[in-house]
C-alpha cells in the first residue's frame, strides 16, 4: 500500500491508497513521518476515501499521526471516512478525538 502526499491550501494532504490494517499500518506511519519531517506544513488532512477497512492497528497509526501533528502545533483532520472504516472509530469511541469532515474539500476549505 502506498500513500500519496500533497499540499492543498497550505495544508498537508495524505491519502493512503488502501486499507489501514496490521499489515499496512507500520509502513504508512514510517512514510508519513518521513514526509512530515520535510513537508513544512502544520495542519494535515488524512484522505481516507480509499481506506475501506481500518483495524485497531490502523487506528493506532491514526492516533500516532494525531500526536505527531499536534506536537508540532497543528491539527489533524480526517476526511472521506467510509462507513466500514468509521466503525472501528465508533466502537472504540476514538472518533471524538479526531476532527472529522465528510470530504477533503470541506477539510481543506479554510487552508493553513
Amino acid at each position, binding site marked *: 500500500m502506498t500513500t500519496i502526499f500533497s499540499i492543498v491550501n497550505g495544508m498537508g494532504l495524505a491519502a493512503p491508497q488502501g486499507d489501514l490494517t496490521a499489515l499496512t499500518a507500520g509502513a504508512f506511519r514510517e512514510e508519513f513521518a518521513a514526509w512530515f519531517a520535510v513537508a513544512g506544513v502544520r495542519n494535515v488532512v488524512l484522505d481516507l476515501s480509499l481506506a475501506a477497512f481500518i483495524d485497531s492497528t490502523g487506528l493506532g497509526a491514526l492516533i500516532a499521526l494525531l500526536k505527531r501533528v499536534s506536537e508540532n502545533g497543528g491539527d489533524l483532520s480526517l476526511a472521506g471516512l467510509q*462507513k466500514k472504516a468509521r466503525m472501528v472509530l465508533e466502537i472504540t469511541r476514538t472518533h471524538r478525538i479526531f476532527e472529522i469532515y465528510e470530504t477533503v474539500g470541506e477539510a481543506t476549505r479554510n487552508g493553513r
Partner: protein
Amino acid sequence: MPEPSATPDAVVRRDETLSGRVLVVDDELINRAYLRKLLLARGCEVIEAASGEEAWRLAQERRPDLVLADVMMPGMNGYELCERVKGDPGMADISVIMVTARAEIEDLEQGFALGAFDYIRKPFNPRELVVRVRNALLLKRSNDELKLWQRRVSRELEVAGGIQRCILSTTPWLGDGTEVWMSHQPSQHIGGDVFDAIPLSDGRVCVYMGDVSGHGVGPAMVSSLVKALLAGLVRDLGAQGPGAVIDALRKRFEQYVQDPEVYVTLFLAILDPAIGAWRTVNCGHPCPILLVGGEDRSSQLSDRGELPIGINTKAASASDTEALVPAIPDSLLVLYTDGITEARLADNREECGVARLVGRIRTGLASGQLGDPVGGLIGQLAAEGYNVGSDDCSVLAVRQPAAPPLLAREVEPSLQAVDILGADVAQALRTAGWGEFAAAAVRLMVVEHGVNVLRHGQSGERTRLHCQLRVAGGEARLVFHDAGREWQFEEALARVQRRARADDESGRGLQIIHTLASGIFQYRRDNRNVTLYKIEEGRVSAPPVEDAP
C-alpha cells in the same frame, strides 16, 4: 434445692470427674452457689446467670457445652430459654437440662418438646445430677467430634470434587465436521460418571459415556481410573475400532479392580470418516438417543450389547457386538447416564424417563444450531422439580451439523495470512447473504483476534491459527484455536482497560471484539486455546449507536 441430707462431696471419685463448660441458670443465688461448687469440684468450668435473659446473653458470648436451667424464674423462664437456645442454628447443639420442682408429666413433655436433653427434679441427689450432667457433656463432646470429622470429610470431598471437575472436563470439542458438547452434575461433591471426547488423527473422534456402580469416593476413583486407561487405549487402539479398545480396557480393569461389586457400564463410539459412521460398542449402558433433523430415530439403533466392564465375560471380543451408527448430517447422538432418566419429581415420584429426556433435548435444539444443545438440560430438569441431584447426571451430545462450516482453515502465523483470512471470512458471509457492514464487522473480529494471538501467543509455528466459521440464520459462530500460550479473554481485556488512555496507539483489539460479539466463550482443551465468538447479524449490521456525551 438439694435434698436436705446431701452436701457436695469433698472427695470426688474418679469416675465422677467431668469436663466441659456449664452455664448454671437460677434466680436464687444459693442454688447457683451450690451447683457451682458441685460442678467445679468435678472439673467443670462454670458460668452463672441469675435470669433467663442473662443466660441467653452469656450463652451467645461463651458458647457453653451445657445449660442447666431452672424452670421457674421471673422474666424469661427455663422453657423460653431452652426454646431460644435450641431454635438458634448456631447454638442448637448446646445441651439443655431443665431443673424443675414441677414434676407433672406435662411439664416434662413440654421441656422435651422444646428440645431439652434431660431434666432433674428438685430436690435432687447430687450424684444423680452429676450422672445426668456427665451424659449430656459426653454426648455433646462426641457430637462435636463428629461435626469436626464431618467438616473435614466434606472439605476433602470438595477438594476431590474440584480435582474431578478438572479431570472430567466438559469443554466442548468443536471439530470442523463434528462437535461434541458435554454436561455433568455429580450427586454429592464427586461422582462415578465418566465421559470424554478424544480427537484422533484422520478426522476420527472417540466419544464415550460410562457409569461406575454406586456413587461417592470409591466410584469416583474408579471413574478416574477408567478415564486414564481409556485416554491411552483410545490413542493406541482407536484406529482398530471400539472393540479392540473395550477388550483391552476389560483386561486392564480386571488387573486393577478385584471387587466384584464394582463394574462400569460404558458406551463407546469412534467416528470413522472413511465409512461416514460411528463404530460403537455398548457394555450394559443405556441406549443412546439419536435425533435426525430433530426427529427421534433412537429405535433404529442396535440394542446389541456386552456385559459391563468388570463383570467376567467369556465373550471372545467386543468387536463381535460392534454396531454402526451412521453419521447423518443434521443429527444429534446423545449419550447419558441413568441419573437423568431416573430422576423423579418430588411430589408424585414420577420418573423423568427417556421420552421426556428426548422431548427436552428437542426443545433445546430448536433454540439454535450453533450453541450447546445440552448445556442447560440438567438445570432445566432440576427447575422442573426432578431430583437430578440424587445420582450423578451426565450427558454428552455429538452434533453432526447439517452442512460443513462456511469456512474452516488453518493459517500460518503471519499478519499477511491473518489479513487474508479476515477478508475471506467477510467474503464467505457476503456469499451467505450477510450485509456488507455486518461482514466487515466479523472481518474486524477475525483480524483483531488473529493479531492478538500473533503478538501475545509467543511467535513460531505453535501459533498457527485455526479458524472455523458457521452460520445459522442471522447468527454466526467463529471458533479459533491455537497452541500458543494460554490466555484469558476477560483477564486480558481488563488488563488493557485498566491502563487505557484516550490517545493509546494500541490495545483496542480486544475491546473491539468485546463490543461486536454477542457471546464470548473460552476453553482450554488438548493444550490449545479455544475461543468461541457468537455474532448476531442484527447487532452488527449498523454502526453502534452514539451514547449521549
